[in-house]
């Protein structure tokens, strides 16, 4: 009786999505874990092979439903490289705007879910409330709250509406004092430290070995942030710090994410100032026919296709809210990508579950897995 396998999931409050954590417990102590994924596998990589380059963007929003714009950015960067198209600068700034707002929204969502995992009900509502303001902003220029379909190969769909930057600054002004409030509700409470300190420890060398990236890696003190190390879009022109902690535990991940939100606010203020000063086009003027802006693709593969476009391979790496996301797009000259391969950060983070769960107690699973920030959509794809 004292040793048993416990199925946590696929329907379980801890999982934040559809997956199954099989836990081998001895009393309340975890002896082994075995994550089972695939409950949300939609074959996005396969579907992408059957869609036009722009149509894949609709799948990207659904790959990670809390960080849709970051994934759009990832895919668009790769496919632009594969198709040899350069977006205008304003479009790049708009993409950074999207990605940083999405980072805050995703981290707020994480905060809400994480504090509920340790039994704090109140900040859950605060996190969701404040995230809603960002979704409102997204809706005002992309037209949707979660499934944006905003970015296009060669730019973005449309410019931000007049008065947007002021509203965005208003939201940022509202958010900054809220971060202090979040800290008071969690770090200010002794129970939080009792629950989260020295929990789920994964040191830097283990992170590297296991392929763990993102806030989990930075909480272990390793300074790796693709926005700094391999700047894409216009990140090399923006001024920000990489959030770091050295405790490698749940509290460290919390601190890193909170600091990242503050840094995102800092980036966003610069981006908004830039957008105010530099009007311009948001879409490349020279596009292949099947990407032409309002005139969406005509015909299906092999039918109306003119296969004389240069081939290419696109590779992009984006520091997604959850970590390092990669995309590899093979363009064989058709109007569909030949092969799209994504690397999801959460995929690797969950794969390492055995290394940060074993030895702790059953009651520690929710905070630890909460601190990983799981988005099953992008794991299963």
């Amino acid at each position: 009786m004292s040793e048993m396998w416990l199925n946590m999931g696929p329907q379980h409050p801890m999982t934040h999505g559809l997956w199954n954590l099989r836990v081998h417990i001895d009393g309340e102590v975890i002896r082994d874990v075995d994550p089972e994924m695939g409950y949300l596998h939609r074959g996005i990589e396969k579907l992408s092979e059957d869609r036009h380059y722009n149509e894949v963007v609709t799948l990207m929003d659904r790959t990670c439903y809390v960080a849709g714009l970051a994934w759009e950015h990832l895919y668009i960067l790769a496919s632009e490289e594969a198709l040899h198209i350069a977006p205008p600068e304003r479009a790049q700034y708009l993409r950074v705007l999207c990605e940083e707002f999405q980072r805050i929204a995703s981290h707020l969502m994480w905060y809400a879910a994480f504090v509920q995992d340790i039994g704090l009900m109140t900040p859950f509502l605060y996190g969701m409330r404040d995230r809603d303001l960002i979704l409102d902003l997204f809706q005002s220029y992309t037209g949707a709250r979660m499934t944006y379909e905003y970015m296009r190969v060669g730019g973005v769909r449309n410019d931000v509406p007049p008065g947007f930057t002021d509203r965005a600054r208003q939201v940022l002004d509202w958010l900054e004092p809220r971060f202090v409030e979040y800290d008071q509700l969690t770090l200010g409470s002794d129970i939080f430290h009792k629950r989260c300190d020295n929990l789920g420890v994964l040191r830097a060398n283990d992170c590297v070995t296991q392929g763990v990236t993102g806030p989990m890696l930075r909480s272990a003190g390793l300074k790796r942030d693709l926005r700094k190390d391999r700047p894409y879009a216009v990140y090399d022109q923006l001024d920000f710090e990489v959030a770091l902690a050295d405790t490698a535990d749940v509290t460290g991940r919390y601190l890193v994410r909170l600091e990242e939100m503050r840094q995102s606010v800092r980036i966003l203020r610069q981006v908004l100032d830039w957008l105010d000063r530099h009007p311009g086009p948001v879409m490349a003027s020279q596009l292949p026919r099947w990407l032409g802006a309002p005139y969406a693709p005509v015909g299906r593969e092999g039918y109306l296709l003119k296969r004389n476009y240069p081939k290419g391979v696109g590779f992009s790496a984006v520091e997604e809210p959850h970590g390092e996301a990669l995309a590899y797009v093979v363009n064989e000259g058709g109007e569909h990508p030949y092969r799209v391969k994504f690397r999801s950060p959460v995929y690797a983070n969950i794969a390492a579950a055995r290394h940060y769960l074993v030895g702790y107690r059953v009651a520690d699973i929710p905070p630890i897995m909460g601190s990983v920030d799981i988005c099953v959509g992008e794991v299963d794809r």
Partner: protein
Amino acid sequence: MTDSTTTDETTNDTTTGGSVLWVARPMATAARQFAKSLFRPSTIVYPYERLEDPKFREKVEVASGKPIGVGQIWDNYRGVHALNIATCISCNLCAFSCPDICIDMVTVPGGDPKHPKKCPQIDYGKCSFCGFCSDACPEGCLTMTTRYGLTTSKRAEMVYSPQRLYDVYRTKLPMNPIRLARPENEDSILLDPPLCIGCNACARDCPTQCITMLDVPKPEAKPGEKLPKRIWKEPVVNDSDCVRCGTCISVCPKECLFWGTRK
């Protein structure tokens, strides 16, 4: 299950410190929020209060101190489509551009029997509200509105016929104002003259009537050579009227029309 107090030999014991449970600060923060939301919590009481109602937005912003709906521009929202049947030219671009293949072109009254008028019918059970169709619509007759309530009890009711989409159009809801610019290097319809038989199919089916069939001189047959059996006309496309729908290419029986850059 063993009593947890007896499992102290296990690893990772986090409660080494003997501090008192100090809880005053989170309780103070919660109390502050309690005082703030005592009279007007941030909740939007949805069926009675709607963010798309501008009067409500102004009221609530003052009331709670939180910038509710500060980013809202509901005109941009991508909700249920509105279709203006009168201006629809049956070009098929919406159906072509749909990633989910949820748009069917169905016949609506109003066309002549030989050349029926077809308008989009949208299956909202499949639609992902990406807006590609309204971006593709060259006439601006298929737009997206701010309507978002789609709940029904029957699956068949998720399919919106052109007439139902037209009803949405007639409600005069705010419509998505975003119109995308055409790229500079747009392709044109080009002709491979030796293949053409002058059958008039392209000109007949062109939704914008931008193709005219012009006479070409019938060449003199050289001795021993048999002239192809064809009508001696060739299509000429008016690029400024053309919406690049590709209908002509798909109806051409000889596949002599193709996309290309006009020199």
